[in-house]
């Protein structure tokens, strides 16, 4: 019995040694609150090609001809993105051989069709039929980001102003959006 008690004490001592000497120190788990994940996402937006047929009109006296199309972009008003969006940059590039004056107007609309935000830029016209490239970048302000975050439809218009010359040519537009997101308070 005496040896048994001695034995139990010995095992208890060794076990206690491991338990008492093991610890976790010099670390601060509260720093998990400071963790911020900030990915930047490059995403394609819309693209298209227009040619002479898209600007044909029965009214030969018409001065302004508009080609318009719309699409839903439902990721724009996604709560997850909206709450964590920090910066947005829109990039457009247009290659054009039309000789007329042209502008591109991209309207971001909410679900009710009300305009929230517009990107508007002139497209360089071609005087000799060669390809003229227009590049346009818009960095959105905080207010713009709020507006675009309320949108879910993009209506894009290419507006051509006639100049008496025949409407001949081709226009192709490319676009993408760069999102800077920031996830904190995970």
């Amino acid at each position, binding site marked *: 019995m005496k040896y048994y008690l001695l034995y139990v004490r010995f095992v208890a001592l060794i076990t206690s040694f*491991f338990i008492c*000497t093991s610890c976790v120190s*010099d*670390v601060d788990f509260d720093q*998990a609150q400071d963790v911020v994940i900030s990915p930047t996402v490059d995403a394609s*937006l819309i693209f298209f090609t227009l040619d002479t047929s898209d600007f044909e009109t029965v009214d030969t006296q018409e001065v302004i001809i508009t080609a318009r*199309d*719309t*699409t839903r972009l439902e990721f724009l008003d996604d709560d997850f993105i909206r709450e964590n969006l920090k910066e947005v940059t829109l990039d457009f590039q247009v290659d054009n051989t039309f000789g007329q004056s042209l502008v591109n107007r991209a309207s971001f609309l909410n679900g009710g069709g009300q305009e929230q935000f517009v990107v508007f830029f002139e497209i360089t016209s071609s005087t000799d039929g060669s390809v003229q490239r227009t590049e346009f970048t818009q960095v959105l302000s905080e207010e713009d980001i709020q507006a675009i975050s309320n949108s879910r439809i993009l209506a894009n218009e290419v507006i051509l102003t006639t100049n008496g010359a025949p409407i001949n040519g081709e226009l192709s537009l490319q676009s993408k959006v760069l999102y800077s997101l920031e996830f904190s308070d995970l």
Partner: protein
Amino acid sequence: MRAFIIIYISFVVTQVCAQNKQLLYNVDDLPQTLLSNPGAAISFEKHIGIPLLSGFSVSAGSSGISTYDIFQEGGDINTRIRDAIFRLDNKDSFVVNQQLELASFGWKSKFTENYYSAGLYQETDVIAYFPKDIAVLAYEGNANFLDVPFQFSDIAVAAEVISVYHFGVNKEISKKLRVGGRAKLYMSIANINSTNNQGFFITRETPEGPNFLQHQVQDASVTANTSGLRSFIDEDAGPGKAVGRAILSNNVGVGFDVGATYTIDDHWTATASVIDVGAIFHTKDLKNYRVSGSYATNGIELEFPDVLNGEDLNDYWQNLQDEFEENLPYEDSLQNSYTTWRPTKFNASINRGFGANLNGDCDCTNSGVDRYATNVGAQLYAIKRPRGFQGAATLYVDRTWTRFLRTKMTYTYDAFSNRNIGLLLSTKINKFNVYLAADNILDYSNLAKAQSASIQFGFQLIFDPE
């Protein structure tokens, strides 16, 4: 989410050859040595484990970094996380292994001199490789990684909870050679396996294309197989179901261990073993998840339909969603059978005995094989994992001080640690034995800096020869 980050990093960043039981290997007076080498030279005639207490082990760790590397006081935690993500690679892993002996016993045959051992133990084994590409994509986004593929093969996770019925025979072939084998019947309680994923996501710059960028998912095949979980998730089964499965599961497997000890001369012995050569066949209570296919998009191409002349408006967004789902279908109601291979372990050792012969000058109870009070040697260990072998090398000093106390001290080197010192204390009063083993003891003063830790203990009755 915050708790998840702390727990994940605490484990991911705490390595490992989590199933390496270097401290119990070759300890000839502990029955647990038979579980790592069924052909071990053992010195006892009978053993009975205290139910649920005869053997418990737990180990956890990860390669690459420690908890301290992330959560150390001062500095910027985000810089440290980013550095860690880019320093770790897809071979770095997080591993947890736990074993609990539910029943254990063995006896020496009076007629054949064979030693028979049997029992039932429960085991949990988890390995998750660091999904490097996916982590970089989630943390950094794709903008700075155009034309860089993010491989889905980086996702590799295997987790299982099983119980194992086993029966082994340890047989002396000659004075120089002892061999052993153990048959195993695996009962799968729960299993998750996602290890053979393929394909990649890439954002390509397309200067000659119709838009700036093209987003591609190429040859994706991402599958997660589960068994034993559907009844818990969909049918809300209780813990009783898990206990029932531990005793008798519909998802069973078979396997075996083999091992041998060769006595080279009076002082030198060599051992080798292969543990858990087997597979589990998952056929019931299944649920598989799969995403497969290829898809590429440049964005939404507006077609400017001539509405005035009767052309219909296009629902581009819906078309995009439909194309995506058609080309990359997500299936979550599959119930396909699958097979998982157990993580096979390999052990080998060379041992030199010194000092007093514990069997006396003339040992008539153990075929005349010498047992020395002091042993030194080297052990090699390897375990087969989904991405290849993980290995470890150990040097040890094993000393039997008295009939009351035996110790073994180890130094283990592996790809993850070069300062792993382990200690085993095995004590015995009469027939009652307690052992306690822990490795990485240098890091016990601050476990946050440890990349791995393990502890093993057990209580049992061991009967020595008269």
